[in-house]
């Protein structure tokens, strides 16, 4: 495209925009894909830690302790969730993922001392069996929902929204509605499932407060209740979730992944994770609930630096989805030939809805699913979680913190004006926080 300087290409009507116009004209159906937002948005890379200096005393790496444990849900639950690391595995359904992939996530999370989460489709025995700590999601569709699974879960996550599609319901294309998936969801086999975006039996936070009461009564006030929202109005959503009685608020930014959603939803609805965290923390602090109600942040978390920065902004833990899938083998370069045969490439493949994943992760095809060794994949995830934790500890020690939760906004500076404004930390080299009085 750039080789011939006689050709003047349009920025507005770029080649990918032109291709989408032609695809839409040919099919009359909107574009559906998986993965998360692919466009550049302000993110945690736009922040840096300041490290120790004359006024901050660093801790010795490898020798001095730096805690990583976190307790989620002690506000009301008699059995809160104790995790060794502040990194959890986000909700991803059996149906969107193969049984082997779900098992691998459970194995990896358990080895690392953290939790994994069901998804829109119910809990499988394999998943429960391989997950030391399992959070069951309570979604608008209520596919596979039953009181026995609620009681055998370690926590309940009431899903109001998802970062990839705040305001949208789930999708699972017919290629993945296998006999087992259909039976679990009480749906005809092979249909293109489009599930509800609103819960069927409540409207608004006042009703949700009663719903949470019911869930607590059914589970004997034993397990924590999380409320998950897509990052749209995080200040108000967090405050209302707290008012409704949540033990934990999960805020999922627009970079959060999905198994299948309209591309226009993924790229154009919701706000970046970086922008959402400070607003959620502000709501918790104003209600005097910061650290009483825990904040879990999700959406594009990739590295220990991302983890540390989210915690420094006030989160208690983070949640990973897409990164966990990559860790267990999604988009692996070794499969590049097969991805290219599907019209994509390793690293760019986002057709999770198609059910033909060469990695055996986002599929219900038994032959493809058998390609994923859940034991080996679980080890990869455990290793990855270990690295994230070590990286976060390294950064925390450099800032003189004996626990990752002691990180604070004052440990950071922003590299861009946008990030400074969103994160509420000074632009690097200045004391200026846009939007605040000097």
């Amino acid at each position, binding site marked *: 495209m750039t080789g011939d300087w006689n050709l003047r290409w349009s920025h507005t009507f770029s080649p990918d925009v032109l291709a989408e116009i032609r695809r839409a004209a040919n099919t009359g159906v909107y574009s559906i894909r998986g993965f998360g937002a692919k466009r550049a948005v302000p993110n945690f890379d736009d922040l840096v830690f300041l490290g120790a200096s004359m006024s901050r005393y660093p801790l010795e790496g490898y020798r001095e302790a730096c805690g990583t444990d976190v307790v989620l849900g002690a506000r009301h639950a008699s059995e809160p969730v104790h995790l060794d690391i502040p990194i959890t595995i986000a909700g991803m359904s059996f149906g969107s993922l193969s049984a082997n992939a779900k098992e691998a996530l459970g194995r990896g999370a358990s080895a690392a001392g953290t939790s994994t989460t069901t998804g829109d489709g119910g809990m499988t025995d394999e998943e429960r069996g391989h997950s030391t700590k399992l959070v069951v999601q309570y979604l608008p569709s209520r596919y596979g929902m039953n009181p026995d699974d609620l009681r055998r879960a370690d926590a309940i996550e009431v899903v109001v929204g998802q970062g990839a599609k705040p305001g949208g319901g789930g999708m699972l294309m*017919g290629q993945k509605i296998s006999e087992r998936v259909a039976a679990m969801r009480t749906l005809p086999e092979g249909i293109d499932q489009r599930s509800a975006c609103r819960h069927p039996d409540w409207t608004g936070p006042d009703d949700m407060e009663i719903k949470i009461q019911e869930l607590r009564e059914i589970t004997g006030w034993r397990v924590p209740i999380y409320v998950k929202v897509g990052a749209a109005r995080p200040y108000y959503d967090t405050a209302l979730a707290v008012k409704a009685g949540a033990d934990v608020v999960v805020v999922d930014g627009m970079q959060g992944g999905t198994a299948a959603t309209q591309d226009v939803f993924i790229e154009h609805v919701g706000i970046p994770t970086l922008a959402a965290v400070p607003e959620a923390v502000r709501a918790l602090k104003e209600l005097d609930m910061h650290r009483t109600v825990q904040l879990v942040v999700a959406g594009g978390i990739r590295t220990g630096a991302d983890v540390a920065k989210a915690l420094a902004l006030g989160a208690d833990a983070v949640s990973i989805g897409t990164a966990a899938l990559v860790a267990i083998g999604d988009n692996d370069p070794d499969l590049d030939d097969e991805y290219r045969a599907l019209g994509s490439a390793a690293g760019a493949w986002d057709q999770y809805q198609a059910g033909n994943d060469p990695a055996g992760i986002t599929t219900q095809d038994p032959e493809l699913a058998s390609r994923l060794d859940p034991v080996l994949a679980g080890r990869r995830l455990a290793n990855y979680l270990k690295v994230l934790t070590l990286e976060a500890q390294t950064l925390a020690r450099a800032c003189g913190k004996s626990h990752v939760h002691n990180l604070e906004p004052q440990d950071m500076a922003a590299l861009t004006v946008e990030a400074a404004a969103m994160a509420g930390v000074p632009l690097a080299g200045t004391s200026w926080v846009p939007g605040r009085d000097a």
Partner: protein
Amino acid sequence: MTAATALDLAGATLREVNSTLQAADGGSFRVVNPQGAHALACGLDAPVSVHVDGPVGYYCAGMNQHATVHVDGNAGTGLAENVMSGTVTVTGNAGQSAGATGHGGLVVVHGNASARCGISMKGVDIVVGGDVGHMSAFMAQAGNLVVLGDAGADLGDSIYEARLFVRGSVASLGADCVEKEVRPEHLEFLAARLADAGLDADPADFRRYGSARRLYNFHPDDVDAEVAR
């Protein structure tokens, strides 16, 4: 006959009452002074019999398994939501989303049920003596909704495999919901379920509605392929 154990919500907390009911593996209970309590008798998991003297709030008998719950009065939103089995009966009216997402069992409302009755139902049978509100049986997946009165607008919108039987008028059908033939097996089913519900009606007076199955899959055009041909 053993007398029912009395539980008085004027003196006991909801947690105490529900704990007692949830711990029982059988027997009969009578809950008095419910005063519109929410989440009453939810999460029961045994063949106990619970009679509630008075109105209840949201989510009464939610996620019920095996138990028989009888409410002498009206019920708020989400009556017997996600019910798995057993029978839940209300002598008065029910609020929105009665029987929502229910997987099995029988829910009976002698009066009217408000909007979204049977929303996303997954196998439960719901019998309503009066009318049901708008968007009832929205995205209903399986089970049967029997309405002796009238149905509000957009009945059965985006319905899957549930069956809807209405004796009175239907304000309008929702997307992909169509009227279907009433066959002998439907009359037989209606007679049995009406008897179970203790409601008197002639099965022959009902009309049946269900899915046209036109929304089950996306239907992309393929202009390029047509041109190539």
